[in-house]
């Protein structure tokens, strides 16, 4: 019987669990509803007055709790400099200069958690000056938890029951029964094949292989980069009014996280202008294949091949992110450092060593490219085996050997493929395919330690960011500021201790535990750790996407302003200064973020089950090896929901 048939058979089971879950939600809603004020209690209540002290870059209290139906008067007292206050979802706003308190009064008739933020630029870390109003009963939070519990339960039950089968598509015609173990190789051939090869189109192949087109793309991207760097130094020194900051962190960053990475994986690396000057210099050629090289052409040392250096650079940038994303000059310096680093390494080493081993974003996009359906692979291993010239590795008259130091014939992961299309040019057997297929994360490709460690670090840094930026601890946000050194050290300490060491070690412990559980079929702690780290990738990506969505939402109103006055001179180009763009999803941002987290959780659970299934014969799969990782993922997601909604 084929797999789709089995999926249909599983539907009734799914329905039972859905019914169970809905019951749970109704029960939760009743419980939450019972604690509200009864409807007949309509007598006029006294106004609830709450004094908020605002100082750089924190509100006191940072979390305000009121009950639904209360009339609330918020009094804003600016303690040091002028501050603003704007409450999402209620459209309430005010500004206070020091010494003159302002107040607003409103009826709290919408339940849930609503962020408020400073609206008057009050220093570099002004974008992080937020707090939250919780109107109780906080039923959206409980509803989200209920939905999550329901989904996880349904997923767990159905995955567990279908444990011998390939879920979602599967291997047709393999004849695998419900309790049979499908050999990994069968999975691989069925799932790693590219099913929509863009290179079959002559036009696309020409576009992909043309050096002129690539040069033009680089030139345009480089022009934008030069513009951004110039304006970061020459434009307004106020972040929200600087075109470079807004273009980079409100437009490009969300575009990268929300569109390019999920759909195209490393497609950004294929057009990124940062390494272009170095590469042109290294090749001494723009439009043709250069013959000589202007580079020492050294080999990257083997002991530096594991991405530890890249992780450290990433952590360094993450530690300074509060400054880099708010201070225009810091953004400019960071961009110049990337271009400079790329040029330097191009002159020393062969290929794109900067992108592959140093670029903080390179490792990040690389690991998350396993979430993307876009991939480049050799079509037929046999053709490559019979082809001794190996132009894709060594280079030939048509092009250079893989600049990313990959080996296209045997490449199984998208992680280190920069989509530069060099192998499309060098392969004279047309054996390269580039198109859509199962994302690596689900494709049955064995995990590797490098990606596993990076995945854990990126996920934990992302979660840490979420906790800091959206969590209730306003004082932690002040650590992001450049001025406070002690706070910065504490922040770096937490980042390194938790992100680089703590969480990986914790997961290692969990894997060790899992390896000792009977029924884990002799899998080592190392294997389990690697595979679980890969199952953490979707949740990590969701967290970063949620972060990017917030940047987009909060920054959107600044876009027409900086376009009207790109140099910070008080211009009003094209009358854009009078255009006001609203924020995206004010008051509902957290729900969109919650949806992302839930999607990441579901994907993670499916990925784990899928990955572990390839390692363990189905009959020997212990319930623990499903329950413990699913529990860890769900607990993480619960914590995230609490930060976002609770």
């Amino acid at each position, binding site marked *: 019987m084929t797999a789709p048939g089995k999926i249909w058979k599983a539907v009734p089971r799914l329905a039972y669990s859905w019914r169970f879950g809905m019951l749970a939600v109704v029960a939760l809603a009743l419980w939450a509803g019972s604690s509200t004020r009864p409807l007949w209690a309509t007598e006029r209540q006294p106004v609830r007055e709450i004094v908020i002290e605002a100082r750089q870059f924190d509100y006191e209290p940072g979390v305000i709790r009121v009950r639904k139906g209360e009339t609330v008067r918020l009094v804003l007292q600016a303690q*040091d400099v002028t501050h603003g206050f704007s409450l999402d979802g209620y459209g309430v706003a005010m500004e206070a200069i020091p010494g003159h308190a302002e107040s607003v009064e409103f009826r709290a008739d919408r339940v849930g958690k609503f962020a408020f933020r400073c609206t008057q630029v009050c220093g570099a870390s002004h974008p992080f000056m937020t707090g939250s109003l919780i109107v109780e009963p906080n039923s959206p939070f409980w509803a989200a938890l209920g939905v999550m519990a329901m989904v996880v339960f349904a997923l767990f039950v159905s995955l567990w029951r279908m444990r011998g089968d390939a879920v979602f598509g599967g291997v047709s015609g393999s004849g695998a029964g419900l309790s049979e173990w499908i050999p990994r190789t069968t999975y691989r051939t069925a799932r790693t094949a590219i099913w929509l090869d863009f290179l079959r189109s002559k036009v696309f192949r020409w576009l992909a292989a043309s050096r002129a087109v690539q040069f033009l793309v680089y*030139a345009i991207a480089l022009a934008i980069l030069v513009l951004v760097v110039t304006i970061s130094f*020459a434009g307004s020194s106020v972040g929200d009014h600087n075109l470079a900051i807004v273009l980079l962190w409100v437009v490009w960053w969300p575009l990268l996280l929300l569109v390019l990475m999920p759909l195209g994986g490393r497609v950004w690396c294929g057009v990124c202008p940062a390494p272009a000057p170095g590469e042109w210099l290294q090749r001494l050629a723009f*439009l043709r294949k250069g013959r000589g090289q202007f580079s020492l052409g050294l080999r990257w040392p083997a002991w530096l091949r594991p991405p530890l250096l890249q992780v450290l650079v990433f952590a360094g940038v993450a530690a300074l992110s509060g400054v880099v994303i708010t201070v225009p000059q810091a953004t400019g310096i960071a961009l110049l450092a990337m271009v400079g680093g790329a040029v330097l390494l191009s002159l020393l080493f062969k290929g794109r060593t900067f992108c592959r081993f140093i670029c903080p974003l390179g490792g990040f996009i690389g690991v998350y490219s396993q979430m993307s359906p876009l991939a480049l692979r050799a079509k037929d291993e046999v053709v490559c085996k019979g082809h001794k010239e190996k132009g894709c590795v060594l280079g030939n008259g048509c092009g250079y050997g893989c600049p990313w130091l990959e080996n296209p014939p045997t490449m199984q992961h998208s992680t280190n493929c920069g989509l530069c299309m060099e192998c499309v040019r060098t392969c004279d057997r047309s054996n390269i395919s580039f198109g859509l297929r199962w994302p690596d994360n689900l494709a049955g490709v064995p995990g590797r330690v490098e990606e596993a460690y990076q995945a854990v670090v990126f996920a934990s840094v992302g979660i840490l960011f979420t906790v800091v930026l959206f969590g209730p601890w306003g004082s932690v946000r002040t650590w992001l500021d450049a001025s406070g050194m002690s706070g910065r050290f504490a922040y770096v300490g937490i980042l390194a201790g938790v992100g680089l060491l703590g969480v990986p070690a914790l997961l290692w412990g969990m894997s060790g535990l899992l390896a000792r559980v009977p029924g884990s079929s002799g899998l080592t702690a190392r294997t389990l750790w690697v595979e679980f780290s890969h199952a953490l990738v979707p949740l990590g990506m969701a967290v970063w996407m949620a972060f990017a969505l917030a940047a987009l939402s909060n920054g959107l109103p600044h876009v027409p302003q900086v376009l009207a006055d790109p140099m910070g001179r008080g211009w009003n180009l094209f009358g854009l200064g009078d255009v006001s763009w609203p924020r995206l999803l004010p008051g509902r941002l957290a729900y969109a973020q919650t949806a992302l987290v839930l999607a990441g959780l579901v994907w993670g659970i499916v990925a784990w089950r899928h990955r572990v299934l390839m390692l363990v014969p189905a009959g020997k799969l212990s319930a623990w090896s499903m329950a413990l990782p699913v529990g860890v993922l769900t607990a993480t997601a619960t914590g995230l929901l609490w930060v976002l909604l609770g």
Partner: protein
Amino acid sequence: MWSELAALALVMLVVVGLPLSIVYGSRDSQSGTITLTARTVEHGGWSQRTIRVEVGKPVRIRLTSDDVTHGFLLPEFGIDTGPISPGEFTMVEFTPLKPGVYRFYCNILCSHHHGAMNGQIVVEGDATGAVRPMGPVVSYPQAAQGLQ
């Protein structure tokens, strides 16, 4: 070969020409307008502590802030702009008719050293033409200035 040179020219244009043209093209071209940028005293205070102007000539000052909200108070001319928000511009115009030294202050608390945030306008020239004691005072709080 020619195409390579053309490509090189294009790259040089982007890398060298673009920043130069941006910086050169966006210089303040309004002669006679003084741009006065406010920063907290810890970061340098007013961008000009002393502004020299000539008696009888209209003075236009464009005020902005680099960090937090500041104020601009020039008591002798009756000018109080109200809040000067970071990144936004406020225009002030007046005509001094009497030589002298006039102090201006930040009048919105901006830092611990807010009290030290002041400067002076030195009106130079002889007062022969100054029959009236004081010229007309014009203040445009929060007036955004369009592209000239």
